């Protein structure tokens, strides 16, 4: 009881110093939590992609298209249940900063292959039956205040012109990590327009999506599809959606690992800073600890007082950091939704935040605790004069 009182009063003796240390730990914990969340979400995004879907693209590069005529030949490959296709459209809504992914797709099969995009049945059929219709993710609809029936105009970048679509449906994700920012419209609409304006680019698709009958046949089917088009004008590369995502972001994985390392470095830095502060504090109080010892208090008492102070300060910082994490995550989700459509901090991350804060307190407290509890009284008392 008394020890606790002494710990708390000691902790707030140098208010500025303590507050700065707490803020330092809070910022470090906040950064740690947000960086970890970023990494988590990235891996979750890869996880979210299905292993039972294959993606076929041009073997040379993603930016080269494939002829639409491939679709029937792919469909005949054994093990293929369904084929759909799409084009990365790259349209911009008003300004570049309003970025969200948008695709021209074959409406029926594509949406069936993505059961994780949940669309009310009436909206789904309204979309399928309107060649100029589109469906848009809940996040993007909320971001721009769109409702079904609204007309949205995108400025084409890959396919020049102003493209107007009528929102026929709004989908939401079946899981927390489902991307709710995309916009899909009819590939036919794109193709017909392109036929008139840039005929040489007509009848081409960016990628085929293949649904497998059995996910375990992914390797055989991929090989069979690619074999079909070997030595043709546009050779293909078929891989699982997951592998596709990974190859798409393989460079990003190196960045993710770097971010992970940085998140630990941040904690180590604040550890060193806090350890220095605690050592400084303990040095100033050596005579007090010696006095307590003189009065008969043991090394354990003094150890508790010093260690407790270190823990209280870093835990206060940790809790503050955790509290700040939620508004920060919310801010990222709303203001940076084009980069982070979902930014949910996992409970595990919160625990790791607190564990990091406790570790900072423990490490920062070790040396001063040892100094304070092993000080020889006569030496400690001499420090005062």
């Amino acid at each position, binding site marked *: 009881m*008394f020890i606790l009182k*002494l710990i708390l009063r*000691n902790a707030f003796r140098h208010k500025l110093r303590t507050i700065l240390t707490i803020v330092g730990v809070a910022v470090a914990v906040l950064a740690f939590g947000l960086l970890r969340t970023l990494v988590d979400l990235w891996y979750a995004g890869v996880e979210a992609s299905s292993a039972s879907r294959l993606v076929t693209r041009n073997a040379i590069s993603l930016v080269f298209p494939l002829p639409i005529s491939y679709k029937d030949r792919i469909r005949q490959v054994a093990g293929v249940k369904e084929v759909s296709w799409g084009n990365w459209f790259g349209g911009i809504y008003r300004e570049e900063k309003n970025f969200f992914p948008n695709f021209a797709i074959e409406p029926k099969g594509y949406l069936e292959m993505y059961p994780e995009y949940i669309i009310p049945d009436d909206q789904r059929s309204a979309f399928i039956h309107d060649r100029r219709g589109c469906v848009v993710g809940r996040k993007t609809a909320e971001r721009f205040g769109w409702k079904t029936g609204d007309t949205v105009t995108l400025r084409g970048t890959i396919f020049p012109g102003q493209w107007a679509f009528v929102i026929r449906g709004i989908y939401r994700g079946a899981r927390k990590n489902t991307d709710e920012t995309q916009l899909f419209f009819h590939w036919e609409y794109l193709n017909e327009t392109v036929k008139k304006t840039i005929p040489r680019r007509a009848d081409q698709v960016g990628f085929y999506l293949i649904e497998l009958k059995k996910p375990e046949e992914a390797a055989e089917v991929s090989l069979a599809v690619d074999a079909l088009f070997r030595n043709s004008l546009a050779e293909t590369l078929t891989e699982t959606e997951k592998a596709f995502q990974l190859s798409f972001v393989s460079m990003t994985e190196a960045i993710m690992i770097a971010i992970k390392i940085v998140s630990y470095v941040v904690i180590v830095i604040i550890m060193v800073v806090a350890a220095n502060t605690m050592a400084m504090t303990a040095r100033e109080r050596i005579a007090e600890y010696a006095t307590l010892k*003189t*009065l008969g208090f*043991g090394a354990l008492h003094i150890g508790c007082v010093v260690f407790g102070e270190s823990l209280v300060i870093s835990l206060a910082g940790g809790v503050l950091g955790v509290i700040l994490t939620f508004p920060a995550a919310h801010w990222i989700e709303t203001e940076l939704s084009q980069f982070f459509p979902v930014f949910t901090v996992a409970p595990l991350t919160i625990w790791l935040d607190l564990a990091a804060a406790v570790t900072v307190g423990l490490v920062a407290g070790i040396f001063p605790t040892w100094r304070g509890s092993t000080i020889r*009284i*006569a030496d400690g*008392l001499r420090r*005062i004069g």
Partner: protein
Amino acid sequence: MDTAVTPSPIVSVRNVSKSYRRGSQTVPVLEDISFDIAVGEFLALMGPSGSGKSTLLNLIAGIDQVDSGTITIGGVEITTLAEAELAAWRAAHVGFIFQFYNLMPVLTAFENVELPLLLTGLSRRERREHVEMALSLVNLSDRMDHYPSQLSGGQQQRVAIARAVVTDPDILVADEPTGDLDRVSAGEILSLMDRLVHGFGKTIIMVTHDPKAAEKAHMIRHLEKGILADGGG
């Protein structure tokens, strides 16, 4: 039997030597010191700076270890006690008064005086009674809730004296208790100590540079380069 004429010593120092190691060389501080202090004595230790007064006081108070020799206090040979036993013994038998008061700045006068009682089995109410009594003894009942920074030097030293006597120890050790005080405050502290000896039968060992302070003592001993020179009081 005439034990009443020469009361048995409460402190008995025998052939005590103490040196400090400074780097590779050993600096002798106390050399073969022997003397007794009787119950109810008020002893002043004087001597030039660096002569070893504080060192001797610390040895008697059980906060430093002798190199050789024995110190017996109230029948207990403290030079044989292990650290934890020594801590318990100190808490029960010795009251400390320091030059710079050594109060905990984050605790009020009341809480500072209560400190040594926290190591006893006393209840909260009993502690409160003891603390109030000790503070009234030093005439600071009205300053119980003040923090050290809100008190004058003399008042702080009085709080320290209350802390030293609150456990009712047999001996009080004071290292230059008036060294940091003006004449008036020093006078107050000295008469308080005088009262502790005469009114409460405490034994006090006080290190001082101040001849005025030494005058209050019954006996003055001089330390000169680690050797004790007798002096009357």
